[in-house]
């Protein structure tokens, strides 16, 4: 076994590019996923059966199929029908849609965890359903939702590595590029593993700090 990291420092810039790309992709995808997820969650909770069915079906399909397959469908499958996106856009679409499925469940359970008495009290004061949601339920649900949304971000940070298969220049892809130039596979991979580990560790720590602050500000 010969380990040789000496050729690695010259590729520092590539690693950094990869890190930036991975964080960017994750942030954008979770942000879009959160908005989509909110819509899907509201659809799922709708009293109109058709709408609630569409919401539920979306969540089930997204969670019931592999992310890799979802990406390949968008990247390799859709062009067959003339729908073609650049790799970067495919990465964002696939991860956002995937994230939305999980975020929808986070939001739905966050809202449903609010005591039903809160809705009753609001309605008994003459508020409409949407008013009660907006002024009473959602502000309380956010406290349940934000920490889980943070977790989703950390999970996505790692899961996003899968976009490297379609040539997306994320951190994992950079390792592949470097190993194809240096003929060394282990070193770049172990480096990005360490980078992923440190990133998730840092974000998790930040999250739990944030979560503690949420709780201490909790007035319940």
């Amino acid at each position: 076994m010969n380990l040789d990291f000496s050729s690695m420092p010259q590729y520092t810039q590539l690693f950094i590019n990869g890190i930036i790309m991975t964080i960017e992709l994750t942030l954008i995808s979770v942000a879009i996923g959160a908005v989509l997820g909110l819509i899907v969650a509201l659809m799922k909770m709708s009293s109109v059966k058709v709408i609630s069915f569409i919401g539920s079906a979306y969540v089930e399909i997204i969670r019931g199929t592999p992310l890799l397959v979802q990406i390949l469908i968008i990247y390799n499958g859709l062009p067959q029908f003339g729908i073609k996106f650049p790799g970067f856009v495919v990465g964002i679409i696939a991860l956002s849609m995937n994230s939305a499925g999980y975020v929808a469940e986070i939001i739905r359970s966050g809202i449903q965890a609010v005591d039903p008495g809160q809705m009753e009290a609001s309605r008994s004061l003459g508020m409409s359903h949407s008013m009660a949601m907006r002024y009473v339920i959602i502000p309380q649900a956010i406290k349940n939702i934000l920490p889980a949304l943070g977790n989703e971000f950390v999970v996505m940070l790692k899961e996003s590595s899968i976009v490297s298969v379609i040539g997306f220049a994320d951190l994992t892809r950079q390792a592949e590029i470097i190993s194809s130039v240096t003929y060394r596979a282990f070193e770049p991979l172990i480096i990005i593993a360490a980078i992923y580990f440190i990133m998730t560790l840092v974000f998790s720590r930040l999250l739990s700090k944030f979560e503690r602050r949420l709780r201490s500000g909790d007035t319940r």
Partner: protein
Amino acid sequence: MIRVDNLHKNFGNLEVLKGVSLEVKKGEVLVIIGPSGSGKSTILRCINLLEEPTKGDIYIEGEKINDKKADINKIRQKVGMVFQHFNLFPNMTAIDNITLAPVKVKKIDKKDAEDIAINLLKKVGLEDKRDSYPVKLSGGQKQRLAIARALAMQPDVMLFDEPTSALDPEMVKEVLNVMKELANEGMTMIVVTHEMGFAREVADRVIFVDDGMIVEEGTPKEVFENPKNPRTKEFFSKIL
């Protein structure tokens, strides 16, 4: 003022209310008593449509409320409700709990709503708690705040759903006193309670509900001292 006609309510196959009819006049205090599970709370919850009646009609000031065309949000503004478990908004201070609905629903100016709220806080003896969050309040204080919150909408009638059942015994009185004061001011009230002392003292009329039906009805004196129905007698023998 309130008329309930042949009210039925089913939850699935369970028939909770089996034809309840009652009437409450303006300024009257009606107390509903009865064993748990008899349907007392369901009657109240139907009156502001937190539960939808399966059959029967409910009129508030002549307007049929369980009608597709009725504006339920408008009707609920006239009907205040106090819950067993308070249901205060935990993320808001006492004063914000009170002003939220007047400001958002009635579009009252924030400043005016606060003036109303401060007066109400005084009325229920919580003027020093205006900026406290519900978690900092005792059970009795919470319920008094909940009463103030309901009163801020200036309702024509107040519904009380076992308002003292979740309280420690020493806090029951402070809540009942606020309710008594309200009754003395001429507020129309329907109260579901297990507080027989309150019923005797404050009620204009008492109804005894058992198994989804009104079994006995009369003045407190009639119902408590001279119950006619054997089920009423049995109930009193258990609790008094």
